[in-house]
């Protein structure tokens, strides 16, 4: 559990929306310009604070989608009954201001500098966001550490960053599991991730792999328990869950 103790105070700062980009019908990436941003590590998150005209505020945490060294960006999934995500994914536009503070979290992080273990990344739905930061960081760093991504989504149109992920053809093997709908002729996995699929994708434990698993609770429980039963030491299975039932 190597980690760097973070002891400096995290203060709110005003960030300007530099660009927004729709990733899927319900998911948007928001690139921010934050003058005092101290940089971040792959896998960390940040807090967002919105303020209404009457002073009412709402705060939420979002995973950082960009690699260290890139402008900070978040990718947000719209929850129809949400308070903040519908605003961020429909109303917010370039030039708007909001407040952020971060980066936050020092455990679910991956640093290319001290990485030797093969990387197994497993994402359920928008759980791909911090793993995308890891993948971009890996690509930018030039490390030769091999990586595999197992990504569970409802359907291909629900796959976030699909064109970007498809460009990793040689260096990162990407396996999709489509839980709700698969196109005609789909030869990949249909349905939820199961033990057989996981055993086929996961690195053999003899290579001392490290796994990062992010998604809804049911997905994370299945994958993390599956990896432990394949022989992964629990401390080599880092998880991050987002609450509530449902998900892919």
């Amino acid at each position, binding site marked *: 559990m190597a980690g760097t103790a973070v002891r400096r105070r*995290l203060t709110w700062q005003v960030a300007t929306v530099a660009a927004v980009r729709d990733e899927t019908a319900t998911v948007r990436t928001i690139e921010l310009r934050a003058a005092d941003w101290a940089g971040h590590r792959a896998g960390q998150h940040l807090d967002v604070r919105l303020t*209404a005209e009457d002073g009412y505020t*709402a705060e939420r945490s979002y995973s950082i989608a960009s690699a260290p060294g890139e402008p900070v960006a978040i990718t947000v999934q719209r929850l129809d009954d949400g308070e903040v995500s519908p*605003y961020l994914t429909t109303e917010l536009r370039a030039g708007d201001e909001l407040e952020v503070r971060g980066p936050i979290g020092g455990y679910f992080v991956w640093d290319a500098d001290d990485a030797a273990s093969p990387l197994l990344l497993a994402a359920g739905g928008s759980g791909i966001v911090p793993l995308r930061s890891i993948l971009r960081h890996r690509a930018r760093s030039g490390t030769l550490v091999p990586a595999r991504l197992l990504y569970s989504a409802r359907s291909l149109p629900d796959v976030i960053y699909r064109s970007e992920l498809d460009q990793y053809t040689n260096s990162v093997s990407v396996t999709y599991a489509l839980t709700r709908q698969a196109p005609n002729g789909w030869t990949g996995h249909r349905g939820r991730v199961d033990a057989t699929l996981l055993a086929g994708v996961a690195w053999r434990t003899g290579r001392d792999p490290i796994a990062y698993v992010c998604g809804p609770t049911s997905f994370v*429980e299945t994958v993390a328990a599956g990896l432990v039963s394949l022989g992964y030491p629990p401390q080599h299975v880092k*998880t991050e869950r*987002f609450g509530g039932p449902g998900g892919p």
Partner: protein
Amino acid sequence: MSPISRGFHGRRSDEAPPGRVPPGQYVTHDFPVLSAGPTPHTPTGAWTFSIRRAGDVVKSWTWQEMRELPAETVTADVHCVTRWSKLDTQWEAVSLDTLLGQAGAGAAFVLAFSDGGYSTNLPIADVTGGRAWLAFGYDGRPLDPEHGGPARLLVPHLYFWKSAKWVRGLELLDTDEPGFWETYGYHMYGDPWREQRYAGD
């Protein structure tokens, strides 16, 4: 001065009585799960709860011995640092006053330790005086493993990461030592009403 978020109106929560929800929190009816690794599954037959000092066991209980201690039903609001609050949660639990009283050893702080390597630090004043419990039941049923079963701490007046899941004991300390999340930048104390989320808050 915070900038106005153009077009943001928010959704004022009128379901929670005033004073029930700390600043920056929202009420959820789900019971979200957050943890850093795989869920441990320790059978109650192999479970013990130990109070230790400098690594030596001062007092230890088996599952059966713990279940024979006086238990109470605790109704509490819990507040997660990730911003959800859940009101009126109901637990079956043994007061830490009972456990610490039987151990009979003094300390200024405790470090709770758990299966899976998790730990979190608490001042002794916050785990005594009827404010902290060892909880083994939730909503009338045994506590699910993903929510910390077979037993977790319940310290509802602090952010919920202080209510260590899968807890197996308390280390008695003279000086405060950071636990797992505290090492990774979270607040040493974690009072939700003062929004002590991160170090320095």
